[in-house]
């Protein structure tokens, strides 16, 4: 396997919430996450809403500063970067946001939206119009779209524009934060195909965040499963679908309905009771133990770390420690 492009070590992001006067609580959105993203791969992150997957994606790109932990880009800690190097990192690491309706400036034309980044960074793009048109073609749009405004496009087309904007910076790494969750399935299919193809063409490394297991499986060879601010399991996607080790992963995978009535009805289901805990008041020990059917005494007192069980398989669960 190739070298890691991005390495995250014990990353934490806490958001303060005021309780009363000076007393503060913290939403522990990301709470001690470590993983590697290898060059050329699309690393998948799945989890339910509020598990911190979006915060994780944004923190890695330093769109929001982390509370603690380290982020390495090609072996260098980006938190120690000076202004100049940080600017270069920001060019090389891009993001495609979840909601294409709010991520494009309604008062800018498509041309302005796409050229803004390269202009700011002083990238030599040759003839700007030609450059933008070539990008639009790459994402399945046409030259006549150049001077239109975002409201003239459908949701799927807007997401194509957002992808073209990311590609304009000639990035190495792109975070895709639920890029198709606001779209209909027939449109989703074409966007996913396109991202896959562009990834190959531009030799991109990526992180694909989604709550939809089927989508992540389609996009990624390796998947990390998040639960309330932590990654509880990482594995090869085929193997993960065959066998889940962490009880939460098992519950999550057994809960997704599969678009095939015979398969989905004969599937064994593991329905876990209750709901995820609040990221403000986390249980002591493992954060899944209140819902876990296999909870042991140790789970109540000590939080398990992500352990390497097998080649390509990491689990944070005392059942395997």
């Amino acid at each position: 396997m190739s070298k890691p492009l991005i390495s995250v070590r014990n990353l934490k992001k806490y958001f303060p919430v005021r309780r009363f006067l000076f007393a503060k609580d913290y939403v522990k959105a990301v709470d001690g996450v470590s993983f590697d993203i290898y060059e050329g791969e699309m690393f998948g992150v799945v989890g339910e809403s509020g598990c911190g997957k979006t915060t994780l994606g944004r923190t890695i790109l330093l769109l929001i500063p982390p509370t603690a932990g380290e982020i390495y880009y090609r072996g260098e800690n980006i938190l120690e970067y000076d202004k100049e190097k940080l600017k270069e990192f920001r060019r090389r690491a891009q993001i495609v946001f979840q909601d294409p309706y709010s991520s494009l400036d309604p008062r800018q034309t498509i041309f302005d939206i796409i050229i803004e980044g390269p202009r700011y960074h002083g990238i030599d793009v040759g003839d700007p119009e030609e450059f933008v048109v070539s990008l639009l073609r790459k994402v399945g749009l046409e030259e006549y779209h150049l001077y239109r405004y975002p409201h003239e496009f459908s949701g799927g087309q807007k997401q194509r524009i957002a992808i073209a904007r990311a590609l304009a910076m000639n990035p190495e790494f792109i975070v895709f934060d639920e890029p198709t969750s606001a779209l209909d399935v027939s449109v989703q299919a074409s966007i996913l195909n396109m991202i896959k193809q562009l990834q190959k063409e531009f030799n991109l490394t990526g992180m694909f965040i989604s709550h939809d297991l089927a989508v992540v499986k389609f996009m990624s060879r390796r998947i990390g499963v998040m639960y309330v601010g932590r990654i509880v399991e990482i594995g090869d996607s085929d193997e993960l679908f065959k066998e889940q080790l962490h009880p939460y992963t098992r519950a999550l995978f057994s809960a997704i309905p599969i678009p095939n009535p015979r398969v989905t009805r004969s599937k064994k289901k593991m329905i876990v009771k209750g709901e995820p805990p609040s990221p403000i008041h986390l249980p002591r020990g493992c954060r899944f133990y209140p819902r876990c059917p296999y909870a042991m005494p140790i789970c109540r007192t000590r939080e398990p770390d992500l352990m390497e069980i097998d080649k390509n398989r990491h689990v944070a669960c005392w059942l395997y420690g």
Partner: protein
Amino acid sequence: MSEPILRVEDLRVYFYTYAGVVKAVEGVSFEVYSGEVVGLIGETGCGKTVTSRALTRLIPDPGRIEGGRVLFRINSEWVDLLKLPDSELRKIRGSLISYIFQDPSSALDPLYTAGYQVAETIIAHNKVGWKEAWLKAIDALRSVLIPDPEARVKNYPHELSGGMKQRVVIGTSIVNEPKLLIADEPTTNVDVTIQAQIIDLLHQLKNLRRTSIMLITHNMGLIAEMADRVAVMYAGRIAEIADVYTLFEEPLHPYTQGLIRCVPDPTKEIKELYPIPGTVPDLINPPKGCRFWPRCSKAMDICKREVPPRVEVSKGHFVECWLYAGGGHE
């Protein structure tokens, strides 16, 4: 098969907007049998929610029900819900036919406790006092698996999580033992593990009380999991109706085929997805003839001119497409 309890015939709903008349539902017919789950599937804006709301005339301005019949069986007698006086219809809504709306946070009134809102529904349809209704509300919340319902009835909606709110909404809708439960995207706003709990709950309802459920969703997985029969909607019309196995294994309408192929199946090794080309038509000026033809790879001349009739290809398998109506051999 059991008897039908609901028969929708040629339903048409238009919205009179400034931009023009939106023909949101145009000639929709289907049946719901007692004790079954009918799935109504389609993409955003295909008219599935409008259809479900038109059944009890819950269409807000500027929408209007332009025609059709909604026949509902009450004690072996058929009544047309579209012709019923408002006062009569109000007795049916919330008792014989009830709804689970998509967004549980807006379905509940933030100013009243969960218990009050359930009890209110009981009182509106039964001759009972507050005390009795309150106790029944607790039972209802218990039946939708809300832990510690005696305490929860006193909670306001903001004190409940999304999954809990959806349970309260479900509790409210089943408390009067409806014959038909219309669930509009009941799990869209909740997480997968909570979705599994709610699916389980709806299954129990159907099995224990033989409630008919109309499940409206865009999620093919949910349909595969829950529905007995499925109606596929496209641009205000029904494209195909079949039992769930036939629909997934031998879909006939090109739109159904496209819909099934574009959804990734996590149990299979997929290299590429097959999107449906083009976009959903504008319903102010829908294409003439079949509304799917501009996106259809098998479109023929007749598709562009005439609306395809409904053909029963095999027993219970209906499709509205010229490919199966002899359109190719004109």
